[in-house]
């Protein structure tokens, strides 16, 4: 009984000084920390420490071949990245890819959601169909699309030919390879955005629409003045999540293009992998990791800033 009181006291952060069983109080004060400790330990070991470590490593010249020979080089690695035209292309590719997958991914999903957000069973089935690629391994998606995009025997070029269009170069040309990866990413990701939008739409109170209907406001005005603002938290969430995951693109590059042709699909994580795990440039790879970390960190900060301002934060 006393214990229960003590617990409640602590839980409510009220003064515990008046209680006689001080040891209990201490135990109960420690309890929340004990409960959080295991999870935090994992974050510390596999997340926060590695962040600090990779920053440390980025100021050194080192290679996985010989971890003992690690040498302080100051900002040399960053300078080398800055001067490297290939790395600038890697950054440009990453930005292009992100812009296209995030932008198109959200726009397409938004309209799909508006369309498919109905009660009838068909719409549910189509939602499921659109969503299905999202739960499949990216390995399979990459291999499947590599086959679909095969310039000679692939289904896509067969279809193009069938409707009388010229064959497309897909992954084989510097101009189309990045576009092809974007297509794959959209195919896999649009379904997720769509169902999230639909959930957002369903959480908009009906009476707002009913009021708009009474005003005889045209559908596009309702869309612009009610739907979009009400969806803005969802929209913003998707923007951040999609951007961060676009920065991470690796599997499709590794399996489908290896960064080529001629570096045209080389993006950050693949670049880091290649420098660190294939060549012997641990320092360069760490510096590039720090650049990536900076980009993701900035986005996260932005997210929290705007989230913090929002009232309907769930």
């Amino acid at each position, binding site marked *: 009984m006393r214990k229960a009181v003590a617990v409640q006291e602590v839980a409510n952060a009220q003064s515990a000084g008046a209680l006689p069983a001080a040891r209990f109080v201490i135990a109960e004060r420690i309890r929340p920390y004990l409960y959080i400790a295991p999870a935090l330990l994992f974050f510390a070991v596999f997340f926060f420490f590695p962040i600090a470590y990779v920053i440390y490593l980025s100021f050194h010249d080192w290679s996985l071949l010989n971890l003992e020979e690690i040498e302080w080089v100051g900002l040399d690695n960053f300078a080398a990245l800055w001067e490297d035209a290939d790395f600038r292309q890697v950054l440009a590719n990453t930005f292009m890819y992100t812009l296209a997958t995030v932008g198109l991914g959200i726009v397409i999903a938004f309209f799909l959601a508006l369309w498919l957000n109905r009660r009838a069973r068909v719409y549910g089935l189509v939602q499921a169909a659109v969503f299905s690629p999202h739960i499949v391994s990216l390995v399979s998606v990459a291999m499947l699309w590599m086959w679909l995009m095969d310039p000679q025997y692939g289904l896509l070029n067969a279809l193009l030919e069938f409707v009388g269009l010229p064959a497309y170069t897909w992954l*084989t040309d510097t101009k189309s390879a990045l576009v092809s990866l974007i297509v794959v990413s959209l195919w896999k990701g649009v379904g997720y955005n769509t169902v999230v939008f639909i959930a957002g739409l369903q959480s908009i109170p009906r009476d707002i629409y009913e009021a708009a209907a009474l005003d005889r406001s045209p559908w596009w005005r309702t869309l612009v003045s009610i739907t979009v603002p009400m969806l803005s938290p969802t929209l913003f969430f998707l923007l951040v999540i999609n951007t961060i995951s676009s920065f991470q693109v690796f599997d499709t590059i590794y399996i489908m293009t290896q960064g080529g*042709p001629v570096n045209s699909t080389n993006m950050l994580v693949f670049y880091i992998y290649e420098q660190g795990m294939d060549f012997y440039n641990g320092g360069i790879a760490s510096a590039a990791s720090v650049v990536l970390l900076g980009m993701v960190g900035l986005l996260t900060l932005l997210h929290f800033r705007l989230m913090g301002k929002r009232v309907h934060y769930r």
Partner: protein
Amino acid sequence: MVKKVRVSILACVLTVTAVLAGCSGKQEAAGGQKSGSGSGGQQQTADAGKPVEIDFWYALGGRNGEVIEEMVKQFNDTHKGIVVKPSYQGSYYENHAKVLAAVSAGNQPDVTMVEIASVGAFADAKVLQDLGPYANGEEDKYIPGLMGNSYWNDKLYAVPFNRSTPLLYVNRNKLKAAGLDPDGPKTWEELRRYAKALTKKEGGKTTTYGFSTPIDIWFYEALVFESGGNILSEDGKSVALDNEAGKAPLEFWSSLLQEGVMKAPPGEKYNAWDVAKQDFLNQQVAMIFTSTGDLHALKENATFEVGAAFLPANKRYGVPTGGANLVMLAKSSDEEKKAAWEFIKWMTDTPQTIRWSLETGYMPVTKEAVESDEMKAAYQKEPNFQVAVKQLEYAQPRPMVPGYKELQEVIMTEIQRAVLKQATVDEAIAKVVEKGEKLLKK
């Protein structure tokens, strides 16, 4: 109730832990063995109760990989004190990355295949075991032309295993039908003429290309050698491509592409090779460059007569050798090293190399094997198998300074840029030289 929950959670944790431990147990056992040994290996090897386990990594998939697995099994059956555990690691590129990463983690294999140009980098980082004391002069049995990528700083680090040279493969039926010599073109200009004659168009669309080759570093090296040049300077400290020999191959390929008689197979790294071979087998391309190691598979799968020939000459014949060597890793224990050497010696010994060669197309690696009745009979029956060995007369090692692993990918990117007309030949070469200076300084 409380107890039950606690117990079930505990049980859950324990099961997972136990299962995981079971799976990683092997690894630990191997580690324990590594630290435990080190003193006088002789008796231990003889101790039949405890066989020495060694890990062997290889980098050939498909049928060739199966042959390796079969050979390892045969080795294990005939060597009681040693158990070799083979493990496929993907292509040469993937295998390289795996070895590099594993070395830092300390769970590297005892023996691995290493693409010949990477031997230098690994040896330089002191990752490889000096094989001199083990071979004791036995290395003289290998074909000298295949030993160019075996030494680093005058020490023996690698032994030739699956070795190749680039070859010109021709569809003899198509050449005959076009009234050309079915043995294939002998010079670059003949190659151009043949490619033109073999290219077929239907309504503005090319249905058959005369010639195709991956725009790959290996074939570029070959064409540079044929033009009388070299990739790196004598001391390995700078790029030697800023001259006629470095540019001629690019101009040659570009002009063939422009004339529409050559196809540059799409895809990065070995994907492009796959396409070239596929096109050849499907008779959409009449002549390709690819490795000796593909001979068996191409012959097996082709519905036409396959011919293999020297790469056509420019100023002279010339090719790099290729494929992979077997190396032993320095971190293994003495006992494991003894076993590893047994294995390396056996895999590359005459009977095994003959079998390997006949079942894959790779070259036999010992002098004895080339002279053997078995190989001679095979050459009689299938002259294609002898072409690579004959071509060895004109072969050179691949560059193998530590920076070359990265430089070769730079070169590959730049020559593709030039061939795809995204840069002029001069610009591409200038970029290679500039990057090369940085990479080779290290």
